[in-house]
């Protein structure tokens, strides 16, 4: 039994039930029914096999409102389904045959047709879409199409929700009375009059087109159906009055005539008014129920309420994150704002106050482009309460209860823009939290990392800021680790050093201070990762291609490990396996590597050439799990990768053996994270397991997650629930024998990346074996011969000959 959760509410527009008691939101492949009063999920509509794209609640007569509990949903799985959302049962499934991007249903009770935007894949660099008309009664689309829409491929990259790099996909909008349906294309606004039910061809549907000045993002109809508002990327809002009077109501004009004139002046509208306050892209528009106010929101995170007559504005500033959607509730004073930080906020426009906020798990931190290589903490285990800590933008650390799939708490000092929390670490008793946040520089001014120490004084109060260190190093902080038993934290930086921070007691004032007790560096190498061993006696710090081991108490260098033959890779992750003498490292570069070191012999135990996204070790010891991507990143000069397939593999290893005990494919796993949860009672209860082994939490790039028991033999038989969410795709347990047979099968994608670099499982290789050294020198110039710690190098008499030989080769060339 596996537990899943964590979904992005704000990806698609939510919808209210007729009586206003429930809110239907798209959560991945399912639709969640949330109670407006409590904010909790009351039902979940499961059935779609791909992402749900839109929800249309069936509306009826005034007296029938409380009993009508039907809703249509559309999805990328090429179906449209009708549900009873109080009983969570599926009523009808209509196969459209195309992926459905958006859907509206006209509101005349006598008519029964749906407009859908669908997409069809074409060979030419992307997708084209069609707006289709669908008869519900016959379950067939009307012949022809209403409009053609061109989507660029980039429109479907939703990885960066909060930065709005990509535009929203075109969505259909229906007017409230239901006479019109519209769509804002990039270059024009389409307005269709809802046809009679007997219409046989799409070309018979009356339509008019408005031509704005700029590519549009969003449009809206006013309740009286006389105004059409549309907003563009520059923040300009245009409102047309009496749209379609000539086309739809005057007998002199036939459709063909109005269509022929495409000039600006020939738009079928009486007048055009513009409103300009936003200076960035406007994401959503909505009219109030009486039509006198226009509501808009965009990337500035400011809610603006326009009085249409006068053009006066009212503002609700400092909301912290960009807008995605504004949805009107049956109560005319309430609107739901879907924000990009995965929250739903119920705004009362009378008082301009938030009645209620529903937080989902917040999206990943997006670092600025110049710092994309920064290896941020994606999720950290908060040991005591079974919650995980999620660092996010705007200086917020969210605590998320993964078992209840609920926002638990958040810590926020001051809402600050352009500042992201990059690292979080906790002490074992969770009394101390350490965070690193990064402020993005403007024109090279004022950027840098800030190290903060937080303390928790009591159970109910969240963390309070104790010490703040501005610019703890010269450059950005790249890694953070906390000692397993003492109050010691370590930070590694771009400025080629690491620092140990200790808590010291001030005797006279009986307070605790955080001080930098020691600093260390190795050969002026940049330090990318740090980890404490579980007994706390050893600190491993990655110094570019080397791994340095230190004694954190005396701050002395103990040992240096170097990966044989890897001179251009950078070690980016380090982890100790508890209760056994193994250290795991993952390096990045041209030849990324997962390496397991045996610390008792100080040698490489085994390694794989694989790109690792995340490592987690079982706190009970004995196992570790790795999130590995099947396609290696390709590094350019700029350092950015080109191509990424979404699927990643989760492999469970015993450190003694290079053969994984289990492998799972994980869709959208690249850019995700994974974490072992200790087997507390609550965890076992939540996933109906009783074993005393740790459970594995995997998050994909949308922060949807799965918790399951990785050791249980029966478990990875995928429950339909998991498959539905596309979390664990083919969760077959791949046993040892299958593994061997499948490596011979090159087409099997899950394992062809695991090319065993060393198949020596039992014999360890000392690093500085002389035969190995000669192999290196034969391929590398002699400069690399000495590119190793001095104590690893053999004596000069041994390598002297090879150096001389390399000189001779040079001369010969």
């Amino acid at each position, binding site marked *: 039994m596996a537990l899943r959760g964590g979904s992005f509410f704000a990806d698609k527009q939510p919808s209210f039930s007729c009586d206003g008691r429930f809110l239907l939101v798209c959560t991945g492949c399912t639709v969640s029914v949330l109670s407006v009063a409590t904010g909790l999920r009351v039902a979940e509509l499961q059935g779609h096999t791909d992402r749900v794209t839109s929800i249309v609640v069936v509306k009826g007569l005034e007296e029938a409102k409380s009993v009508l509990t039907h809703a249509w949903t559309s999805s990328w799985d090429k179906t449209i389904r009708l549900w009873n959302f109080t009983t969570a049962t599926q009523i009808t499934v209509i196969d459209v045959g195309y992926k459905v991007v958006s859907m509206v249903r006209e509101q005349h009770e006598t008519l029964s047709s749906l407009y859908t935007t669908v997409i069809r894949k074409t060979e030419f660099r992307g997708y084209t879409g069609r707006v289709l008309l669908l008869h519900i009664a016959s379950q067939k689309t009307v012949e022809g199409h209403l409009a053609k829409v061109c989507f660029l491929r980039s429109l479907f990259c939703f990885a960066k929700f909060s930065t709005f790099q990509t535009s929203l996909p075109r969505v259909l909008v229906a007017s409230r009375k239901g006479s019109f349906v519209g769509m804002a294309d990039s270059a024009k606004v389409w307005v269709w009059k809802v046809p009679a039910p007997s219409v046989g061809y799409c070309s018979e549907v009356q339509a008019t087109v408005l031509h704005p000045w700029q590519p549009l993002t969003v449009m809206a109809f006013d309740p009286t159906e006389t105004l059409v508002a549309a907003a563009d990327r520059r923040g300009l809002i245009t409102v047309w009055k009496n749209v379609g009077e000539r086309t739809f109501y005057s007998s002199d004009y036939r459709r063909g005539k109005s269509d022929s004139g495409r000039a600006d002046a020939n738009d079928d509208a009486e007048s055009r008014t513009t409103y300009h306050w936003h200076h960035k892209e406007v994401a959503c528009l909505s009219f109030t129920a009486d039509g006198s106010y226009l509501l808009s929101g965009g990337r500035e995170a400011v809610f603006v309420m326009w009085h249409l007559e006068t053009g006066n504005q009212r503002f609700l500033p400092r909301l912290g994150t960009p807008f995605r959607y504004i949805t009107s509730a049956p109560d005319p004073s309430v609107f739901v704002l879907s924000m990009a930080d995965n929250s739903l*906020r119920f705004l009362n426009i009378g008082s301009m106050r*938030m009645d209620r906020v529903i937080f989902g798990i917040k999206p990943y931190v997006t670092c600025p482009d110049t710092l994309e290589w920064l290896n941020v903490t994606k999720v950290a285990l908060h040991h005591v309460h079974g919650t995980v800590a999620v660092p996010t933008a705007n200086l*917020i650390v969210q605590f998320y209860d993964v078992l209840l799939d609920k926002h638990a708490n958040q810590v926020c000092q001051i*809402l600050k823009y352009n*500042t992201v929390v990059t690292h979080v670490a906790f002490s074992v008793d969770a009394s101390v939290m350490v965070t690193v946040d990064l402020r993005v520089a*403007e024109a090279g*001014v*004022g950027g840098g990392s800030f190290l903060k120490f937080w303390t928790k004084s009591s159970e109910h109060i969240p963390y309070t800021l104790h010490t703040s260190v501005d610019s703890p190093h010269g450059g950005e902080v790249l890694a953070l680790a906390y000692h397993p038993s003492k109050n010691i934290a370590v930070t590694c930086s771009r400025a080629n050093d690491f620092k140990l921070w200790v808590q010291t007691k001030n005797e006279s004032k009986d307070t605790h201070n955080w001080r930098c007790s020691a600093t260390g560096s190795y050969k002026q190498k940049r330090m990318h990762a740090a980890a404490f061993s579980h007994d706390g006696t050893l600190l491993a710090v990655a110094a570019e291609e080397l791994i340095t081991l230190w004694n954190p108490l005396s701050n002395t260098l103990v040992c240096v490990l170097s990966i044989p033959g890897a001179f251009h890779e950078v070690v980016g992750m380090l982890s100790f396996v508890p209760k056994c003498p193994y250290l795991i490292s993952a390096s990045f570069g041209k030849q990324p590597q997962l390496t397991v070191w045996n610390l008792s012999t100080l040698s490489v135990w085994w390694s794989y050439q694989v790109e690792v996204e995340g490592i987690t070790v079982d706190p009970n010891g004995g196992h570790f799990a790795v999130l590995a991507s099947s396609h290696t990143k390709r590094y350019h000069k700029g350092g950015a990768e080109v191509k990424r397939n979404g699927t990643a593999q989760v492999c469970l290893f015993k450190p003694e053996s290079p053969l994984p005990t289990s492998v799972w494919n994980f869709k959208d796993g690249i850019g995700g994270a994974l974490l072992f949860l200790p087997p507390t009672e609550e965890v076992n209860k939540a996933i109906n397991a009783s074993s005393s082994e740790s459970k594995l939490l995997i998050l994909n790039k949308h922060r949807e997650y799965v918790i399951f028991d990785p050791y249980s033999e029966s478990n990875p038989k995928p429950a339909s629930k998991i498959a539905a969410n596309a979390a664990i795709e083919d969760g077959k347990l791949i046993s040892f024998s299958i593994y061997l047979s499948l490596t011979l099968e090159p087409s099997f994608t899950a394992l062809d990346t695991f090319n065993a670099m060393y198949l020596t499982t039992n014999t360890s290789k000392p690093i500085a074996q002389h035969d190995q050294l000669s192999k290196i020198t034969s391929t590398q110039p002699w400069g690399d011969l000495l590119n190793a710690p001095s104590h690893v190098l053999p004596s000069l008499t041994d390598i002297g000959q090879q150096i001389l030989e390399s000189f001779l080769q040079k001369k010969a060339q």
Partner: protein
Amino acid sequence: MEAASSYVPVGKKQLPKSRNPLTADSKFWRRFKSRIVDEQKFAVTCVDFCPVFPHDFVVTASTRVVVYDGASCQVKKTISRFTDLAYSGSFRPDGQLIMAGGETGLIQIFDANSRITLRQLKGHSRAVRWVRYSESDKLHVLSGSDDNSVRWWDVASEEAVVKFQEHTDYVRCGSYNPASPGIWVTGSYDHTVRMWDTRTAKSVSLLQHDKPLEDVLFFPSGSLLATAGGNMVKIWDVVAGKVLTVLGNHQKTVKKLKLTTPSESESRLLTASLDGLLKVFDIEDFKVVHAAKYPGPILAMDVSPSCTSLAVGTASGLLSVRQRKSVISEERATQALEVSGQEQKQVLRPSNFRYFLRGAAEKASDDDYVLGSTKRALRQEHDWLLLKFRYKDALLAALNTKDPTVVVAVIEELVARKGLVQAFSNLEVGELEILLAFLTKHVASPKYSRLLVPAAHSVFDTCATSFAASQSLKQQVTKLKYAVEEEVRLQESLQSFQGMLQTLVQAAVH
């Protein structure tokens, strides 16, 4: 709640407190502020505080003994009935009498108020450099003389009761044992310290210091003895007759020892030496906790019993008196309190405005439940301008405060809003001058340089075209250039210095 949080004012930039290098003792002794610096004609050979409040003190210099007022540090009286140099002017423990020895060997006892010579003790054939009243009975005096003898005098009859003749050189110092009456020690230039019981004529014990003795001092317990001779101070266990510690902290002869009374904190040992240093020792571990430098060899030093005044006399004739400032204000406060206490407290009536404010300043007791008041955060001018998105004006408002912490905080806020370059590019010539002046002043400061150096670069990038337009701007840029060049030069010299030090440290380690 996070949603629509209110505007948080941009306060001052919080910088880490620099660690105070002063210890508690240093802080205590630094609170002594100089009250008078008097130039005497001759060397000040002795200073002694009266044990009775207000702790007047006598200063012995040349042929005069001068009495100073303890509170105001003004000269109260001058006793000049000496035919030759006077020595060792000191008070009787009740402060009523003053006595002094002299070059002639005559010991005189004066009335402290009327300055009349009450007794003259004759007997020493050579100079009497040290004389003290017995602290137990006020009737006897012990004196040490250059004729190698120590005499125990009955003051009333002007007769020497006991004469100790065992020293073989000048006797220049002595001390009374506060624990057992009648026990004295004296130190002599014959390198020995002898302990006397005034009831017998012979010394009770002998300590070898190995240097001519300049001062000896009993600790309050009576079992520890500090002796100063040469440049070292020895601490003795008198009962066992053993040296406990040797303090060799002074370069030249230590002339004077003094223990502060343990009223203020733990007692401290003060040593004054001819090398011009006054050092303070912790008497638990005998480590130096404070040191003060005086301009000249110190001959005389004393601390008032309340540890509020410190008087030092040097060979060049300088008399320096330092007093703790808080003590002065405390005294004034107590005086004021006495005055105000006499006034009757006025009963408030409804005719008085303050009647309606009764209880407003009442503090909540521990078991009261306190309802927090919603205080509106104080907004400065730059806050209002930031609220209106007037970034340039906000920057100028911050610059006008002349407080670098405010300016740095506003620049950081502008960076967070991505409005810094815009603010820079909108600046007029005159406003640019203010900014450049600020940068010139603070760009090299290590507290701010990490932000201000890139900011200065940004200013040059955005405003370079307007520099050519104005002559005064050119001057400002030149000034900034000099400031940066100066800092670079400093850094270079510091680095070369560090390089030198590193080689020394490396050599020392290996």
